[in-house]
């Protein structure tokens, strides 16, 4: 890195190159912690991109090296969305962690994930020993339910948006959901995703942030606690973040949620 505070770049991966953006700390000395941010996917990725940038900036100001990156088939990374698989995305997060440790000379990792990104981050944490802290922001707990929610939103979109699916029928081989082509294999992967079934604690310290209602939140808290994680809960009701919007000129960034996450990370990642 050349001394700037934001460093966009591509890093190599056998299955396709990934785009990432480092946010380097202006504080000297910086902390011995790297933070990897796992985006949600599809329409939620577009909607929360600005929030993640702000979150990474806030973390960098507190002395953390933060990396946000695009999974294979998403954002600026190689590949098409319809080729994506959950296993690929889990590997991508692992690769991002390895890069942060190597590039920053860092030994300790905090993962922050939102929605499906949170489920992926938890899956990664449970499969590694170097993730010490984990933030799950409105995590997808049951993939099957998540797919049902997306399909419901898609039906709402068809009802209210100025679109006529009779003139633009779906493309073959994919399930069209909110403007993105979900491959059948990805749908199967999501259907079998279940955070309540993970077998190892994903991190020593976990922050569970809820801005919307979820009837399995308590069950997830219990599961993580039973695996030996120290779980903190923060409920910050923010229904405005989840209202359907057709026009992204109205994207919101919840400073309250971001500051809550940053405060917890500062407190736990010392």
């Amino acid at each position, binding site marked *: 890195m050349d001394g700037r505070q934001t460093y*966009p770049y591509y890093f190599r991966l056998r299955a396709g190159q990934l785009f990432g953006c480092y946010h380097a700390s202006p504080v000297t000395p910086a902390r011995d912690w790297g933070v990897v941010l796992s985006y949600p996917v599809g329409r939620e990725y577009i909607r929360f991109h600005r929030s993640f940038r702000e979150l990474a900036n806030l973390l960098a100001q507190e002395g953390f090296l933060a990396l946000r990156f695009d999974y294979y088939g998403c954002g600026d990374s190689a590949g098409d969305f319809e080729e994506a698989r959950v296993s690929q995305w889990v590997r991508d997060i692992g690769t991002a962690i390895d890069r942060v440790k190597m590039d920053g000379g860092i030994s300790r990792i905090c993962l922050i994930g939102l929605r499906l990104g949170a489920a992926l981050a938890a899956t990664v944490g449970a499969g590694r020993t170097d993730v010490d802290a984990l933030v799950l922001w409105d995590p997808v707990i049951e993939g099957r339910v998540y797919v049902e929610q997306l399909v419901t939103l898609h039906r709402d*979109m068809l009802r209210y948006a100025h*679109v006529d*699916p009779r*003139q*633009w029928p779906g493309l073959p081989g994919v399930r069209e959901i909110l403007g*993105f082509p979900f491959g059948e294999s990805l749908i199967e992967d999501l259907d079998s995703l279940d955070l309540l079934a993970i077998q190892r604690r994903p991190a020593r310290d976990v922050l569970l942030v809820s801005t919307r209602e979820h009837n399995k939140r308590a069950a997830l808290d219990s599961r993580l606690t039973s695996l030996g994680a120290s779980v903190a809960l923060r409920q910050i009701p923010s229904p405005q973040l989840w209202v359907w919007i057709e026009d992204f000129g109205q994207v919101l960034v919840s400073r309250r949620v971001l500051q809550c996450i940053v405060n917890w990370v500062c407190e736990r990642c010392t």
Partner: protein
Amino acid sequence: MHRKLGLRKMHITEEVLSFGQATSLVGILTCPSETQSTVHSPAVILLNVGIMHRVGPNRLYVKVARRVAGQGFPVLRFDLSGLGDSPARRDHIPASKSRIGETREAMSQVAMSTGVQEFVLMGICSGANLSYKVACCDDRVVGAALINPRYHLHDPGDKSDSYLRHRAFVRHYFRIAFFSSFSAKIWSNVVTGQLRRQSATRALKGFAPSGLLSRSRVTAAAANQAEAGLSALARRGVRILHIYSEGDEGLDYFRTVLGARTEEFEGRGLLDVEVIPGANHTFALLASQEHVVNIVSRWIRKALWD
């Protein structure tokens, strides 16, 4: 500064560009492979939609960039300052001026990177408006593909501006309600009580009394402004493509200003127009996205290269 990405499946490369004088703007340059590239083809620059970052709605800009680059044209999609991964500016230059400057810097950067000297600007909504503005003031622009632009053909500071916007608004809701692919759906929602309050309120506001200016004088003046702008571009040999979704309010603005003169302008080569039926502002349906990519890539090839 460039960091290259090699893509095995398509004959293109993608690299990160960081450039700009006031702040470090971030973009992705997608180039044809060595065997296909030519410095004589124009480069395409994609401009942000609203506050969305450079991938565009539903990742549409990525699809456009990769398809068009695969045809032999370098494509840059970048974030204007304060959007996406580009930091905000620290000077006090208003966005209306700085965005034009940053787009011109982007062209200079692509020229340095590829040797290309001519450019096609492209964008949806605000990106389209900006493309048109820069096309009007920079001789390096040889074409602009404007997708769902609004209020770009007349001077927004003109006293007719509010009348034109109101008239386009009324026209839009009337057309959508009675003469569009969505009419049956809208009335079904009304009858079943499922019409969204926000949509209903907005539609009803459109039917408030308008200003006192004479309708024909205002729209004629706006049409003359549009003609002057488009004629100036045509004299420079700049090709302009307007793409409108059937569901977009911009289509009604376009028809309000140009009206019956649209055919005349097309006949004189001042502009090309495509209307995409059954599509909304940001092309929520996959097949409509594919259609936009096809239109754009075909137009670039036919209008600017063949």
